[in-house]
């Protein structure tokens, strides 16, 4: 988990009442929107634990939707977010469900974009407005939204990670942190790279051309 910065502790500037249940919820919505990469047309939101229990009084519901509309934590339209989404023709469904051994402030988004793309994102609000995305579709990840993040699903073969890092080096992109995990030797592996610079579409397209790469996704940091 990344170290905190001064503006994690004195900040964010936000609309109340709860940094974990309101500001964190906005940021989770914003992260899910970045992962979908397009405006959603259909949104299913599953609330777990404390989000389900106390979300109503904290405005968690409309905070999550505010994030999906691209609002920031200090947007004074947050309380009207659900109404604004409906006016845009976005269908929103809320459910509560026990998602198992996860953080008490956890939400699952199932988003359908205007282009028909569907993603499922699970994330948690871990205090003070900080968040972590734990799952994107079927892949376990740990994305905090502090950095530009590259998520690559690839075959577990010698040299693939090296190819990825040399492509980044050629594109003048510096790696801040990197994690590689795999199901079992020789099967699928997941590489997550946090970088100081944005990953341009051209660099991402080159990742896709690597023969061992199944999927590649670039996620912008939360502002």
């Amino acid at each position, binding site marked *: 988990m990344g170290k905190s*910065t*001064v*503006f994690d502790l*004195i900040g964010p*500037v936000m609309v*109340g009442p709860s940094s974990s249940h309101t500001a964190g919820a906005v940021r989770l919505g914003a992260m899910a929107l970045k992962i979908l990469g397009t405006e959603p047309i259909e949104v299913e939101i599953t609330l777990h634990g404390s989000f389900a229990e106390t979300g109503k009084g904290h405005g968690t519901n409309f905070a999550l939707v505010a994030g999906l509309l691209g609002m920031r934590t200090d947007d*004074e339209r947050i309380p009207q977010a659900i109404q604004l989404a409906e006016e845009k023709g976005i269908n929103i469904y809320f459910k509560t469900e026990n998602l198992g051994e996860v953080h008490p402030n956890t939400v699952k988004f199932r988003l359908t974009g205007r282009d028909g793309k569907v993603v499922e994102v699970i994330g948690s609000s871990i*205090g003070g407005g900080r968040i972590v995305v734990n799952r994107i579709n079927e892949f376990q990840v740990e994305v905090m939204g502090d950095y530009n993040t590259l998520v690559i699903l690839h075959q577990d073969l010698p040299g693939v990670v090296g190819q990825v890092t040399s492509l980044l080096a050629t594109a003048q992109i510096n790696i801040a942190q990197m994690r590689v995990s795999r199901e079992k030797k020789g099967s699928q592996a997941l590489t997550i790279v946090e970088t*100081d610079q944005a990953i341009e579409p051209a660099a991402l397209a080159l990742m896709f051309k690597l023969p061992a790469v199944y999927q590649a996704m670039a996620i912008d940091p939360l502002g």
Partner: protein
Amino acid sequence: MRAYQDYVQLAEKRGLKIGEIILAEQAEESEKPEAELRERMRLNLNVMREAVDSGLSGERKSHSGLIGGDAAKVQARWKSGESLTGERISGAIARALAVAEVNATMGKIVAAPTAGSCGVLPAVLLTVEEALNCSEDDLVTALFTTAGIGMVIADRANVSGAEGGCQAEIGSAAGMAAAAAVELAGGTPGQTSDAAAIALKSLLGLVCDPIAGLVEVPCVKRNATAATIALAAAEMALAGVESKVPLDEVIDAMNEIGKQMPCSLRETAQGGLAVTPTGRRIKADFL
């Protein structure tokens, strides 16, 4: 793991304030100029001021109807000159209530370190500003000092009520505010550490038991009492009173206490004040 003692030693060695050390470290880590970080922090200070002003105007009411107007009541008494505790403590209480009321009514605040504890720091900073005529630059530097303590707490323990109870939120805020007050009053880096330790020690064990799960009761009034604890701790440290247990160890103790707290007392609204007859009744009425 971060240690506040390291910052104190560095500040003493270089003859700088803790806030200046933290600012330099953050500028280096983020590769951004110090002026840019100072400007961003100054904007946070402005939001804090606006929240104080807005809350003291007394026009707000929370969705549940539980919160609103108390800051204005305390302000009226403070301004009447009949305050029992004197204008500084009364002023701090009113300002802390003001910001916490703005938060409970979905207004704009700065989480410091969390939204539930957002009233403590502005109350203490602006009260010290009024008392000592501090410059805006000094207030901004003091905010970096508070952030330094917050980062150490976030690293060694946490600032989330769901993880560590209210001590992690309001206790951290009080510790951070106490250090800022000491620095603004001309105390030494070591005294900021003593003040933060004394304030945090005073709030160890505080459970997170919000009625109906809302950041309203008891959260809003705890902001006000925590601001006074911060000022008391700063007063002791400035007088040369030392914390027998160093700040880093107090933070570690806070972390251990948080882990030992049952889930019912960590923001789940299943224990403490939340399950008193009144707490249950409010919940039933609201939800």
